[in-house]
């Protein structure tokens, strides 16, 4: 057992533990933070596989952006834990069956039962750049699929904005572009006039 294998088992154990805590933690904030831990430790496993681009992107996109928004939502929700936990035992067999099916599928796709013992991954030379290889594949061999996915995402984004955007007529708002574009002449009028003459003796006249 070399050093890398030990590191792999540490990360793997951390991932499984964190994933379990995600569904068992009583506090939803803790659950989200355990999900973050699961992401970070699986990105460690990817780093061991020399997939540094995917590993760092996982941290950047999921941990750095998506999970932040998750935290945001969870922090502001009023979650009733008792209601969430209702029917846990009723649905357990169903969920367990699904999970078992998924495990079976994964094993099947990733190389059959024989691979459980472990296949030694092929090491690349030091000048091998995972990022470059990935870019080459995405932008040459799989360019149509990639562009299609991008367009789909764009449509989803536009649709989400279009569905939630509403302009309220009764609310007042500022047009910042107008505010920035304001010139002095729009706001201030300089009036030139003669200085007024001092009027003397007026006060006493009024008194009379």
């Amino acid at each position, binding site marked *: 057992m070399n050093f890398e294998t030990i590191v792999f088992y540490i990360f793997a154990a951390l991932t499984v533990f964190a994933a379990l805590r995600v569904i068992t933690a009583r506090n939803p904030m803790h659950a989200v933070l355990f999900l973050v831990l699961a992401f970070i430790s699986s990105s460690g496993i990817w780093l061991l596989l020399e997939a540094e681009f995917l590993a*760092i992107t996982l941290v950047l996109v999921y941990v*750095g952006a998506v999970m932040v928004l998750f935290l945001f939502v969870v*922090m502001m929700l009023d979650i009733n834990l008792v209601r969430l936990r209702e029917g846990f035992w009723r649905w357990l067999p169903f969920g367990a069956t699904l999970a078992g099916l998924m495990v079976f599928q994964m094993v099947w796709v990733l190389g059959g039962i024989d691979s459980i013992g472990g296949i030694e991954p092929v090491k690349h030379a030091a000048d091998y*750049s995972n990022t470059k290889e990935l870019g080459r594949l995405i932008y040459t061999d799989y360019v149509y699929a990639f562009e299609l996915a991008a367009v789909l995402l764009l449509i989803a984004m536009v649709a989400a904005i279009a569905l939630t955007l509403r302009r309220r007529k009764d609310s007042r708002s500022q047009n910042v572009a107008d505010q920035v574009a304001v010139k002095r002449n729009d706001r201030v009028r300089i009036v030139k006039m003669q200085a007024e003459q001092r009027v003397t003796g007026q006060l006493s006249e009024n008194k009379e």
Partner: protein
Amino acid sequence: MELLQILQQTGQDLLGPAWLPVWTIIKIMVIVLPIMGGVAYLTLIERKVLGWMQVRPGPNRVGYWGLLQPLADGIKLLMKEVIIPTKSNKFLFLAAPVMALAPALAAWAVIPFDDGMALANVNAGLLYLLAMTSLGVYGIIIAGWASNSKYAFLGALRSAAQIVSYELAMGFALVCVLLAAQSMNMGDIVRGQQSEYGLLGWYFIPLFPMFVVYFLAGVAETNRAPFDLAEDESAIVAGFHTEYSGMGFALFFLAEYANMILIAALTSVMFLGGWLNPFHGWPMIGGLTDAIPGLFWMLGKMSFFLFLFLWFRATFPRYRYDQLMRLGWKVFIPLTLVWVVVVAAWMQTPFWVW
């Protein structure tokens, strides 16, 4: 260099395989300790500069010229009681400052201070940096939530929304840099800016809008004035660290200043040629200044950006929240998106000389 080799050799003989981790820890210390010292004295310089800009002397009581002021502040914060608010989440409350500081320090691993002088020569250095700087927001959110205080919570929400928004513009600006350098390795990015024309070869010329956007987004990312909505005194007391006292507060302070120094270092590396001599290849002055070590130029450029941070703070009034969001989403992101395409197209033409 020879001295380093002798040190390596004796270490290798003495400790064998255990030497590698020891040597790495020594290198980490060599980076982290000066950063901590820099943070301490940056607080003094900040107060001095703010003082001079407002025509007053700034701190000048502790030590000659106020030079012991950071030490005095540090001792004061160490001696203070750490108060944990009632019904707060104790573990997360204490972990949050660490989560804020750790990514700010971890990011330094890939910064080159001179040719080949970096802790880790990572191929995807730029990506690593983006990932590390995006983790800093957790410290703030968790601090705000774990404090069980409305002010802290509001500050955390503001800060998180702000950081996530400005990270996008920052990322796109960095995409321009990696397009121009054709590499994500920090050392290669600096080497890509080397030319016979000194500072004319640096990326701040072809990528000028990105340079400005990157630095301003950096100011916003570090929650500094004029983007310090997260600690808006007049509205939400001190924002996410309202409930922190003593060392908890000090750690947030350290994280903020370490992040400032980090942004200054990154801007210098990516747009101002890192350790390169600005006058290299110029007649007369080029030959004279080439003898100066690269570390000096790097630190000089960083100091310039750090001064900009302080200058902004003394000059600009705080943004309103909607103005902040408008600047991030409606100005910076479209501008950077367009510039990515412009640079990509420009690089295909013979007019790209960088």
